[in-house]
């Protein structure tokens, strides 16, 4: 079982994600630079946060056209677990793998703060060890983190159980307080908050267990598979 961590020019949470996957959860992980393809033996893919291409044009817009995204799309179709965090989520949205858009926060500022999430779907490869409606203390750090969908899409998301996380409070003006969504099949998940910044007790001032369950869910999913 191997997790691919994709690195774009300007990614800056790749090393944090790699540390948590390997040092904390003892998963086998490997970095993949954006301009190549992904090998076949990858069991899960993570797109970490950062400022790919310096957020030029729109967050995630340029990275979504990287060569490696073609392989990410193929893997998404095959049902392989894919997680986009922060800029990774923005890239998945720009690549058309997830619905909606991410707009500037209502404060118009970059926001770095601890908040909490509520688990709305615990059937995905990244949430299957969490309880439904469980609270997750977790930090956000973004300027364009306001998730937006039109009403029709929102209805569809609810119907198909595609809302994975909601904020427990109004944080940035996201539609229906949505913090994370998945595709219809549930294998592609995107979230704005940073689980890799909350999974260790040393850096989580509140409780690191809920966030570690995100990684344990992945371990559970791909561990069973191999």
């Amino acid at each position: 079982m191997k997790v691919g961590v994709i690195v774009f020019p300007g990614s800056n949470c790749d090393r944090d994600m790699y540390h948590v996957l390997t040092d904390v959860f003892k998963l086998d992980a490997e970095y993949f630079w954006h301009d190549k393809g992904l090998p076949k033996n990858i069991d899960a893919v993570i797109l970490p946060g950062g400022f790919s291409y310096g957020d030029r044009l729109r967050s995630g817009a340029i990275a979504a056209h990287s060569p490696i995204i073609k392989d990410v799309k193929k893997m998404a179709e095959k049902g392989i677990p894919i997680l986009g965090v922060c800029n990774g989520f923005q890239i998945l949205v720009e690549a058309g793998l997830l619905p909606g858009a991410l707009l500037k926060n209502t404060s118009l500022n970059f926001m770095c703060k601890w908040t909490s999430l509520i688990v709305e779907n615990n059937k995905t490869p990244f949430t299957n060890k969490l309880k439904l409606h469980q609270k997750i203390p977790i930090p956000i750090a973004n300027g364009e983190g306001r998730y937006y969908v039109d009403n029709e899409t929102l209805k569809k998301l609810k119907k198909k159980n595609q809302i994975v996380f909601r904020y427990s409070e109004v944080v940035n003006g996201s539609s229906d307080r949505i913090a994370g969504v998945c595709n219809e099949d549930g294998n592609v998940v995107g979230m704005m908050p940073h689980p890799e910044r909350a999974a260790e007790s040393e850096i989580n001032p509140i409780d690191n267990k809920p966030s570690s369950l995100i990684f344990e869910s992945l371990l559970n999913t791909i561990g069973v598979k191999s």
Partner: protein
Amino acid sequence: MSLEPQELDDLTSKIGRKPTSTELQIVAAEWSEHCSYKSSKKHLKMLPMKGPLVISEKGYDSGVLDVGDGYVITAHIESHNHPSAVEPYGGAATGVGGVIRDILSAGTRPIAIFDGLRFGDIEKDLQARWLFKNAVTGIADYGNCLGIPTIGGEVEFDECYSNYALVDVAAIGFGKKKNLIKNHAKKGDLVVLLGGSTGRDGIGGSQFASDSLESENRSAVQIPDPFIEKLIIEAILEARNQNLIHAMKDLGGGGLSCAVSETADALSIGIEMDVDKVHTRESDMNPDEIMVSESQERMLIVTNNDKLKKLQEICKKFRITCSVIGHVTSDNMMHVKKGTKTCANLPTDVVANATLLDRPSKKPAYLKNIEQEKKLKPILDYSKMMMKFISSPNIASKIWVYGQYDHEVGIRTVVKPGMDSSVLRLDNGKFLAAKIDGNPKHCYINPREGAIGCFEEACRNVVCTGAKPIGMLDHLQFGNPENPEIFWTFLESLKGLTDFAKYFEIPCVGGKVSLYNETPSGPIKPTPIIGILGLIDKTPLYSKKITAGDCLVIIGETKNEMGGSEYFEYIHKFIGGKCPVVNFQESKTNMNLVLDVIQKNLLKTVHDCSKGGIAVAVSELCMTHEIGCDVSLEKVPGPKLDVDRILFSESHSRYLLVLEKKNLKKLEELLKKSKASYKMIGVFDGENIRFNKENKPVIDLRVDKAQKTWLNSLRELVVHG
């Protein structure tokens, strides 16, 4: 852009001929105050710079400290005052970029940014508000994009910064000792310019920064591009891992002129370069412009022919340009050509070493009666006054600022911004605490004691986390040094810092001097900024939630030292009085005692007592932990004082300790054995912050109301005016 007449004579006699126009530009940049430190260099030598943990190498722009187990930290501080006063967004952002490249130059990965910001009175002055808002956004956009957490700093407002801005940026790097770049070069090595293209931005920036700010010179301000900087960081660290770099220097003030001459001078080599090989943003730039452009995100690297191909491959991977612009010679000359034509050919030691000055100094006349107090208007309602005080820009929470900075990226930040000092975890299991502090109000009244106070306050802040101070950074910001009165304040501050550093054996590992901080309305107050690095071997003090029944103990004496206090200046609009003075012995006793008590695991939290005095420090604890407290003012140790002086005096060496009642006896046993003054002065409980005298409240605030005001007032002021 030119040299002073006597400097021109000096140059002519040193090279034995009339300089060319390019030579004049190169020398004017390098001999500017900003690059040459010609006014300050002679005196800076007094600071202790050696210590058991200090590693010194040739040609470093940052200080290096050994933190054990084969790891080092690097640290540096810079300012970008003049550019930020004209174009706050770009000025502040490129300030971050510059100091980050200094950290990178040593071969270490930048892991933290700190920034100290100072502006005019934002309550009244709309321009100050505009400068403040945009400088914060500039720092946020740059640091966030790089993925380097901004974990601390300070923000202060004072009328002396009207129409001006002080933007100080410090950065910390971390790496393996064996990966440090040991700068070296030999004849035939290649000189490579890597990164952003050279354009017409920032031309003459260092001379611009070496004069009073009278007119806005926008072309002297650099344009930021954090995306390229991020690519440079990753490319250089990859090149470092492959051992491709012989020597490296950031391009900062003075651009290529300084980077080339200083590298050559530090390594005792010559460099021959061709301006036509420099990748430029515009096609028609002349050699003079290319040599002094301060375009950002550029690094000068010395490598050799065998390693060049690998370096080029790395640059290709990151899509950054690298140009071979010249090679190393053995003649100790800086030879600048355009094609085959020589534009400049100067001895590197002449370029890199301006004639140092010994400027006259004289005690300023204003200091004669400054310690005299005037009669103050009595305060009728201290509770009402206190609410106004905690909403004032200098006292209010700075969450609006640090909430815009990614302070978590890198997942090292174990103690978050907001209280005394942030703490980072290091790969060897140790922890690093760091803080920067300044206090121009104290320094104006007494430049020596004020500077020492900044030093002690920064130490106190790291001590509150359980860290022992191991290194200091100083950034000395003053007005025009040609004015003997201003130069006197510079010397006094420097002497004070030197005395404190020697007494505590804290080496100065890096620093910067910024002079000519003046506008037509006058000079700034003396503003030395001190950064302290503290090391924690085992665990930092993780603040635990204060609950009902917990005890409040103060260590240190509260003295009649009101000069430069926020209370005098903000509430009474009075500048004067006696500023707080650090008693070195008392300071050391209290510092060691607090570290000892933290190690014994007796405390829930420790908070430094500084700006706004006990009143503000206790209120901060209450507002942060959402709990009330009853404080008995008559129990506060020190000479007998009026209540307002006990509440608002900013005496140094004081710490507030919070602990569970069951640990009180053990704590008192430890304190009794020491020479420190201490007393239990309060108990946490309920929903009100009360400061009592003879059981009657002098101040009585509801915690929730106070907290809301304290957290929101700065944002309200900036966003809604």
